[in-house]
């Protein structure tokens, strides 16, 4: 690794002034499980690392009346062991239990997973279908950006150079709703997804779909929503034909590429398969009798 200075600010104000001082020569480090690999592979060459670890009040899960707030420095292991996440944000729970391994999850943060903006980010699809927003904060103030508008390209987001990702704001899922995430990979642990599919469904009493959300990972240059398939599902009953058509539509909305983990045609096929499978799980979790 190239040599660098390491700074450990203890307040957000201090973080902002260091970011302003060093600009693009600085790199923020949270858990470090991505940044350290980039440093070791000589993909980034910062003069300064600014650690967020010593900034207080950045790791939390707040269960409020109609929202759940997750601090960006919350580790995947903290999410995995939280009953709020397991019971209310099940798609996110599905994603965090298989991310990396316990040694990674003890350190890696959800803010890092999203800010790193990999197309394969496991927490992105669940957060997309749970209608999460990102709270971005700078010395000038704060703004809320819906996650669906957050990613621009692999590794690129709408965050400005002076902003940091402070928290995720997730509306509490309504009754009669359920969500799930499926990571398609060769093994569960220590593997990136070939494809990730998350779905959340809010149901009407008559078992028709009130609201559908479909999130796809590694299916395009960024994690995406399958808006047309969501629209198609709205108001419908979950029959085999409806699910098959939703899968077809979602598959057409994706723009996967051939990569070392899987080819584009295979990803398109599996979007069809997994849309059905994950929607079925989400429906079961909605607990409509």
């Amino acid at each position, binding site marked *: *690794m*190239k*040599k*660098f*200075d*390491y700074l*450990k600010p203890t307040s957000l104000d201090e973080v902002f002034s260091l970011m302003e001082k060093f600009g693009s020569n600085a790199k923020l480090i949270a858990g*470090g*499980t991505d940044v*350290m*690999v980039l*440093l*070791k*592979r000589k993909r980034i060459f910062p*003069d300064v*690392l600014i*650690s967020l*670890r010593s900034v207080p009040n950045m790791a939390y899960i707040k269960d409020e009346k109609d929202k759940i707030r997750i601090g960006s420095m919350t580790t995947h*292991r903290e999410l995995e062991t939280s009953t709020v996440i397991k019971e209310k944000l099940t798609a996110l729970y599905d994603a965090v239990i298989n991310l*990396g*391994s*316990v*040694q*990674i999850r*003890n*350190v890696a943060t959800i803010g890092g997973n999203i800010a790193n903006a990999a197309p394969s980010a496991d927490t992105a699809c669940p957060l997309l279908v749970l209608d999460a927003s990102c709270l971005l904060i700078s010395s000038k103030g704060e703004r809320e950006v819906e996650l669906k508008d957050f990613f621009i390209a692999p590794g690129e987001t709408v965050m400005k150079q002076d902003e940091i990702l402070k928290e995720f704001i997730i509306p509490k899922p309504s009754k009669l709703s359920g969500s799930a995430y499926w990571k398609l990979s060769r*093994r*569960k*642990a*220590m593997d990136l997804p070939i494809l990730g599919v998350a779905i959340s469904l809010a149901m009407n009493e008559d078992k028709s779909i009130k609201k559908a959300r479909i999130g796809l990972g590694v299916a395009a240059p960024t994690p995406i929503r399958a808006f047309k398939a969501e629209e198609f599902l709205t108001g419908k009953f979950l029959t085999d034909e409806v699910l098959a058509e939703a899968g077809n539509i979602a598959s057409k909305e994706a723009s996967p590429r051939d990569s070392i983990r899987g080819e584009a045609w295979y990803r398109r096929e599996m979007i069809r398969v997994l849309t059905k499978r994950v929607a079925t799980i989400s429906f079961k979790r909605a607990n409509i009798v």
Partner: protein
Amino acid sequence: MKGMKKELITLRVNNEDYEIFTYPNKTLLEVLREDLMLTGTKEGCSEGACGTCTVLMDGKPIRSCLMLAVEAQGKDITTIEGLSEDDELHPIQKNFIEQGAIQCGFCTPGMILTAKALLDENPRPTEDDIKVAISGNVCRCTGYAKIVKAIKESSK
């Protein structure tokens, strides 16, 4: 630029405090092995994939190759050298030997520390719990069955 100078850092490893004069770009793994000569912790892939560099930080398993030594200040670090007491091996270490769960031995320190963290949290794990817990530790001799058995024995 202040010039990327060495810094004096303090680490607590196996219940002893150490002062080390090192560069901020040194990983915890490098400092453990090269400055403290605690070579029980192994370097495998050095990219967080293999698990052989696992140490415990405040009782939780982490990858020491992905942790800067400066970031580990103020935490309690346990390496494989910290498990035995006097000349007595830790029960998990004994069971690894008795069950033949060690072949080349390279993954063993990481496996044992991961197992210790699991058993501290869940003293009666199922076989599946054990397999999930060690899913981030690769054994290239592929002696997994005996490793799982040794951990199972340690839970009795």
